[in-house]
């Protein structure tokens, strides 16, 4: 539709059809495979963290091991906002949150969840801006190493904060009702919340990549000095990119925390060695900085991980490690990166023999 194909139009017809098919599968999923609803929910969480990591690591070339911090911050921000208005937070956490003294009705629950998710998004964004202003000046490996310590730091900080339960963690408010039906209802609602969040983040990010913002962060990835020399406000773009990641990861953390019910700083909220690394793996597996890469990576990773955890329990980390080595050796640029290198014309990279011929065909 655009003159030279330079106007990045992520949603052309074929793509749109595939996306609609995925959306249809997403909507039908929990009804067709009701037993797997929780796995499917976690899958959409994986898709979201995969795409938000790709914004930094893939599109902008800033390999961040610290994105998990926004996820954890969101989780805790949401916990506080969901609990504090209804009961005394100190007493609640002192009791370990066990035996759940907090019984809410549906209205209170969803009001708390809504405000909690909002607070989670905003705090994820703010933490990204604040931390970013400090370490986004680092480049390449230095940035990666700088972010590596962030999750450890955050986990230790929260572990020492008794108001939110310290190292033993905090329990999210229970979903109203104790019947099996209400449990199923909760599962279904959280499935669609995670699905909608992943879809929203995906659409917004793809739209952003089609604007000058997308060009600018790609330029930063390819050569930051040159980008500066062309007058691009690199610091501003870098902070914005991280803030957008932080916003969605914060909300994602809020939803995931409610899904888990009990969260603790080291193993769920700021799980730098687990989820914090998995998000990197998924994108590297699928192909950094590509349209489909993070999704493909999330599918492959989630499926293989679930299989390893089900059938190779005890050896699951060894199997996962072997998988990672195989990927890095055979697909160093990820699956989509491999396709791009071998079939560049699929991605619109072609020499045009004459100017007129090129314009007639597009």
């Amino acid at each position, binding site marked *: 539709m*655009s*003159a*030279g*194909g*330079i*106007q*990045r139009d992520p949603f052309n017809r074929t793509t749109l059809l595939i996306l609609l098919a995925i959306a249809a599968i997403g909507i039908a999923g929990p009804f067709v495979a009701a037993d797997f609803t929780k796995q499917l929910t976690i899958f959409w969480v994986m898709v979201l963290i995969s795409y938000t990591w790709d914004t930094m690591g893939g599109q902008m070339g800033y390999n961040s091991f610290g994105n998990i911090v926004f996820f954890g911050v969101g989780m805790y921000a949401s916990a506080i906002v969901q609990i504090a208005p209804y009961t005394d937070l100190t007493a609640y956490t002192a009791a370990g949150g066990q035996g759940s003294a907090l019984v809410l009705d549906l209205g209170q629950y969803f009001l708390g969840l809504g405000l909690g998710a909002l607070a989670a998004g905003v705090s994820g964004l703010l933490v990204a801006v604040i931390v970013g202003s400090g370490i986004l000046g680092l480049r390449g490996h230095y940035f990666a190493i700088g972010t590596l310590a962030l999750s450890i730091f955050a986990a230790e900080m929260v572990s020492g904060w008794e108001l939110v339960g310290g190292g033993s963690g905090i329990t999210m408010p229970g979903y109203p009702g104790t019947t099996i039906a209400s449990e199923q209802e909760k599962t279904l609602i959280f499935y669609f919340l995670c699905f909608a969040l992943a879809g929203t983040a995906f659409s917004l990010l793809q739209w*952003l990549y*089609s*604007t*000058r*913002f997308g*060009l*600018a962060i*790609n*330029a930063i*990835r*390819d*050569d930051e*000095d*040159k*980008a*500066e*020399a*062309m*007058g*691009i*406000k*690199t610091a*501003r*773009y870098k902070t*914005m990119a991280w803030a957008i990641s932080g916003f969605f990861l914060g909300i994602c953390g809020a939803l995931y925390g409610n899904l888990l019910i009990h969260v603790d700083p080291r193993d769920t909220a700021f799980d730098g060695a687990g989820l914090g690394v998995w998000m990197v793996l998924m994108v590297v597996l699928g192909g950094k*900085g590509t349209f489909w890469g993070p999704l493909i990576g999330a599918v492959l990773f989630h499926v293989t991980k679930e299989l390893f955890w089900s059938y190779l329990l005890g050896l699951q980390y060894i199997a996962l490690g072997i998988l990672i080595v195989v990927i890095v050796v055979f697909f160093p640029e990820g699956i989509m990166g491999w396709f791009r290198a071998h079939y*560049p014309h699929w991605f*619109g*990279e*072609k*020499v*045009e*023999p*004459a*100017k007129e011929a*090129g314009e007639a065909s597009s």
Partner: protein
Amino acid sequence: MSVMLEVTSVSKNFGGVVANRDISIRIEQGEIVGLIGPNGSGKTTLFNSIVGYHPVDAGSITFEGREITRLRVPKIARLGLLRTFQQTRIFGKMTCMENMAVSLPNRQEGLMAAFSRLSTAAIDRAEELLEFVGLHSKRHLRGGDLSFGQQKLLEFAMALMNEPRMLLLDEPTAGINPTLINGLIDRLQRANQQLGITLLVIEHNMRVIMNLAERIYCLAHGQLLAEGEPSAIQNDQRVIDAYLGAS
């Protein structure tokens, strides 16, 4: 004519190495000025100082009457003073058209402009400029897949896309084959005449710089050695000694 760029007594040391010592140059609007000197004479350092890549130790730099000595690279670029690199720098994983698009001037950019899409006018201009440097048929290829010479041309087109008032070119013809060089000289002159871009060019190819420049500054050992018209510089004994080694 008004003064475009004025460098006054600029000095720059790296540790014990004196890269630039007390250098003053002055470039009028619309001129094409050459900057020559043997390897290690401080030409690129002077470029870096002008565009704000590193702070100078002494002296001042003004651009169109405005003090820019302490400004940083992106800010100076947005004022319309742009440089190209000796080791050509383009965005390797982006297509030529994307390279051009990202080079759009960022002058009056508010927060909202960052989220706008490209105008048709901008796309047309990008195509025109790629045509101008002879890369139109390759516009959908990634920058990194072009040959070195083509990357130089792409970098030049990107610089023009940015609509600078003045362009500092660091060895624009290095690595370009001799037949293309004539075309490049022609394009530099047309950019100067038609688009009114003032040029300051570092060049080792004497044939190129003598044809292109109206005036030439010659550096040696970090100091300004000579200044004058090409013919005068060519016959200046100090310049010849600097290049060939004086006894």
